[in-house]
């Protein structure tokens, strides 16, 4: 049964891999088309000349106008821009003796751009500011020079001479007429400079370089992009129009990246930006996703990591191949194409969530899972019901057999065997056969005594009739003596044989038993009087409550026989000086008669067997004794659906028999 889900998983697995394959192919086709268009666009684009020199700068796209306030920390405009810090190096050629004494100043900057402005944020390490003083123009002052080239090849020079911490102006010194304009903020705060400025992107679209002159540890120390006089470096920008272009190819779950040869991100479109609302929709099926991932996410797939960091692709070796990644809760595939534009390589990378592709196809999986679980639930329910029925049958069988065999091990009725052809049915039939056999054996044992006595009677009769004939012929006195002994022995044997068959005869006589409603107290009165006459050496006492009605339905002759046996047993043991007591009590629907005498205790270990046939705890005596008396008591009690029990009285001696008889039949 568990093969079902396994097979389902396997088929879904195969489905998944084929879906993956087809999806890769589909993506490949789509990307090939997109690549051609991109290539075309890039070729025609005015930005198509890209400098591939090493060590270029990168400016990601900022979608907002930034406030030039000299802050870049939390809640500033820079917070949401992932852009790397670039270093400006000190290229002074005279070694500084005091360099070791004072920590070297460091300068770093970062860039961002939109379609109008290039935002520049420069931060220095702690220093002492040296502002430009128009009153002393020749005195060494901190200064920022910027050299930029636009895509037409126009070189621009920019200069900022801060006169204090605060707003600064920038001067375009390259033009014939120096233009000054508000550039941003030059702050000296917490011991270091924060310079946040912006220049028009049209002047710096191709390259930019910085020359920051500081006078802190050393007069006129230059921190430059390059040591040369043309210190600009290529500027790589993420471009809005490319982003727009990529947006054309965007699909749900698809992220597109355009990288230049240095793996800078020049264009990107992220799936998440478009499909925020999809996350909510995916939520209801998170369970399915979780199951899907548990079942089908291959552990051999590498884990997905964010591919870009600070505007740059992290692992170029990912490119130029299709790779699948596992990501929670879905897999991603990464596919890339190389675009050649004017001998420059561009990488067009697509990362696609399989959520939208495979899992939308996994509606089928959902159905399959529901179907599978339904089937399993049905089968489990079926099995449970089957197991319950088996257990119920076993319990029933146990109950039947427990009810069939009474506490004495006697078989009351043979339970019906199951007709079902299964193992339990077989067991039931075997049990029934066993019970029948045991019943037969029990019956055999019960009739054994009777059969034995019957078989012995004939030879005993032969002996006795022979002896009696012998008696009638004239014998000499010596022989007569032996004859008498032989006769005595034979008589005793004869009595024994009668006793043996008595129990059996009694059971036969049950068929003819006459039920009668009699006042049990009156009957006991008569009986005790009779016992007083018969056993004159003993005393008898009868106790009962006169107010109670002791009428009971019973077979009087059998009850008398029962009491005869009890009394004959009692007088054998009871001391003559103490009475044998009858006590009659009414207990709800029963009458209890107890017969008590002061004879010695039963040995405690054989009380339960007292009422069994052939059990006698007596010493050898002259009269034959087979222990049948109490067995007959038990038979009669059972016949009346009563209960007979024996126990020792507390104290050193004394025993009591208790007979409980139901009043109504």
């Amino acid at each position, binding site marked *: 049964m568990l093969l079902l889900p396994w097979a389902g998983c396997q088929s879904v697995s195969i489905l998944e891999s084929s879906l993956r394959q087809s999806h890769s192919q589909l993506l490949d086709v789509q990307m090939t088309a997109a690549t051609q268009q991109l290539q075309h666009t890039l070729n025609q684009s005015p930005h198509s000349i890209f400098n591939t020199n090493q060590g270029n700068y990168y400016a990601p796209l900022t979608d907002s106008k930034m406030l030039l306030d000299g802050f870049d920390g939390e809640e500033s405009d820079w917070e949401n821009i992932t852009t790397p810090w670039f270093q400006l190096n000190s290229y002074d050629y005279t070694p500084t003796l005091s360099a070791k004494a004072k920590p070297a100043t460091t300068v770093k900057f970062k860039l961002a751009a939109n379609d109008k402005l290039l935002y520049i944020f420069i931060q220095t390490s702690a220093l002492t500011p040296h502002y430009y003083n128009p009153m002393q123009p020749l005195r060494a002052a901190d200064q920022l020079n910027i050299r930029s080239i636009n895509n037409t090849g126009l070189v621009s020079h920019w200069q900022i001479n801060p006169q204090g911490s605060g707003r600064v102006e920038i001067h375009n010194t390259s033009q014939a007429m120096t233009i000054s304009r508000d550039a941003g903020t030059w702050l000296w705060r917490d011991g270091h400079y924060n310079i946040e400025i912006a220049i028009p992107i049209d002047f710096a679209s191709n390259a930019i370089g910085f020359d920051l002159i500081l006078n802190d540890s050393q007069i006129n120390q230059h921190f430059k992009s390059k040591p040369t006089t043309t210190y600009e470096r290529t500027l790589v920008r993420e471009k809005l129009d490319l982003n727009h272009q990529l947006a054309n190819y965007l699909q749900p779950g698809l992220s597109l990246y355009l990288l230049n040869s240095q793996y800078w991100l020049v264009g990107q479109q992220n799936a998440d930006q478009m499909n925020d609302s999809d996350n909510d929709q995916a939520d209801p099926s998170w369970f399915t996703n979780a199951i899907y991932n548990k079942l089908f996410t291959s552990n051999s797939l590498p884990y997905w990591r964010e591919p870009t960091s600070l505007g740059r692709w992290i692992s170029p070796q990912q490119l130029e191949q299709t790779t699948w990644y596992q990501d929670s809760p879905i897999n991603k595939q990464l596919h890339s194409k190389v675009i050649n534009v004017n001998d420059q390589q561009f990488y067009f990378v697509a990362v696609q969530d399989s959520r939208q592709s495979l899992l939308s196809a996994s509606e089928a999986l959902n159905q399959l899972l529901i179907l599978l679980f339904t089937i399993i639930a049905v089968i489990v329910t079926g099995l449970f019901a089957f197991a319950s029925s088996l257990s119920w049958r076993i319990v029933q069988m146990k109950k039947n057999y427990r009810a069939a065999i009474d506490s004495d091990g006697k078989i009351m009725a043979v339970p019906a065997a199951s007709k079902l052809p299964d193992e339990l049915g077989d067991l039931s039939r075997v049990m029934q056969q066993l019970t029948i056999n045991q019943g037969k054996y029990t019956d055999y044992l019960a009739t054994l005594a009777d059969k034995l006595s019957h078989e012995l009677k*004939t030879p005993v009769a032969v002996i*006795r*009739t022979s002896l009696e004939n012998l008696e*009638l012929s004239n014998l000499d006195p010596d022989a007569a003596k032996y004859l008498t002994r032989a006769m005595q022995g034979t008589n005793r044997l004869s009595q024994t044989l009668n006793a043996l068959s*008595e129990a059996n*005869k009694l059971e036969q006589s049950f068929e003819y038993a006459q039920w009668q409603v009699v006042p049990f107290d009156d009957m006991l009165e*008569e009986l005790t009087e009779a*016992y007083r*006459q018969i056993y004159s050496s003993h005393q008898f006492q009868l106790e009962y409550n006169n107010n109670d009605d002791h009428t009971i339905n019973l077979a009087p002759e059998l009850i008398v026989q029962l009491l*005869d046996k009890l009394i004959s047993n009692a007088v054998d043991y009871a001391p003559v000086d103490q009475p044998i007591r009858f006590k009659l009590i009414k207990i709800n629907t029963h009458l209890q008669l107890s017969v008590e005498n002061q004879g010695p205790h039963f040995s405690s270990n054989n009380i339960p067997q007292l009422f069994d046939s052939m059990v006698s705890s007596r010493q050898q005596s002259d009269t034959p004794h087979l222990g049948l008396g109490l067995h007959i008591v038990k038979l009669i009690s059972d016949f009346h659906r009563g209960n007979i029990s024996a126990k020792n009285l507390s104290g050193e001696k004394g025993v009591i028999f208790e007979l409980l008889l139901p009043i109504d039949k």
Partner: protein
Amino acid sequence: MIKQQLHIALVEDEINIAENYRDALQRIGYRVSLFHNRQDALAAFALALPDMAIIDVGLQDEYEGGFDLCRTLRQLSETLPIIFLTARNSELDEISALRLGADDYLTKDVSIHQVLARVAALFRRIQALKKPQSADEQVLTRGSLRVNIERIETYWQDQPVMLTLTEFWIVHTLAKHPGQVKNRDQLMDAAHVVLDNNTITTHIKRIRKKFSYIDAEFNAIKTAYGMGYRWVIE
């Protein structure tokens, strides 16, 4: 023997027992023929009927051969006295035997003396029946009950009650002294049998039943629990 020898047929498959009984019966003057199976007995009875038949129930292979023989004999003669002498002491066998018309049912554990007494009593009854009724017969009358001791006959409301000898003597003993309780020993002595208590109870039961065939209201035999029975005249 002065009188003509009475002929008793003894059908008994156990040769030793048969011969022992034969010896005892012959000793007091009866003529005894022994048969060991039903066929032999029937062949002989076809020629001449005996004066009495003593039959065992089980005859060799035939488990109830004695009953069959009894049935056949009853067809041959209504009056032939038949006594069953058997090792079986089940009540069922006894009832079956008496129902088939046997006059008495003795188990083999009674002594030979009792057997002889029963045989003698039965012959006496036959002879009494053959005799014409006379005025000096011993008749015991107790209300509706009339007991003829000579002829061993019992009448209730002038209708004959078919009692076996044992039953006859029990009824006689009880009715002789109405109201007096007779215990089991006394009843056994009277019936010349040694039986266990249970058998006396069975006899009483059967006697009551036989009387109640004639009179459904019959209630003359009262049980004195633990002591015995007494005859009550209403």
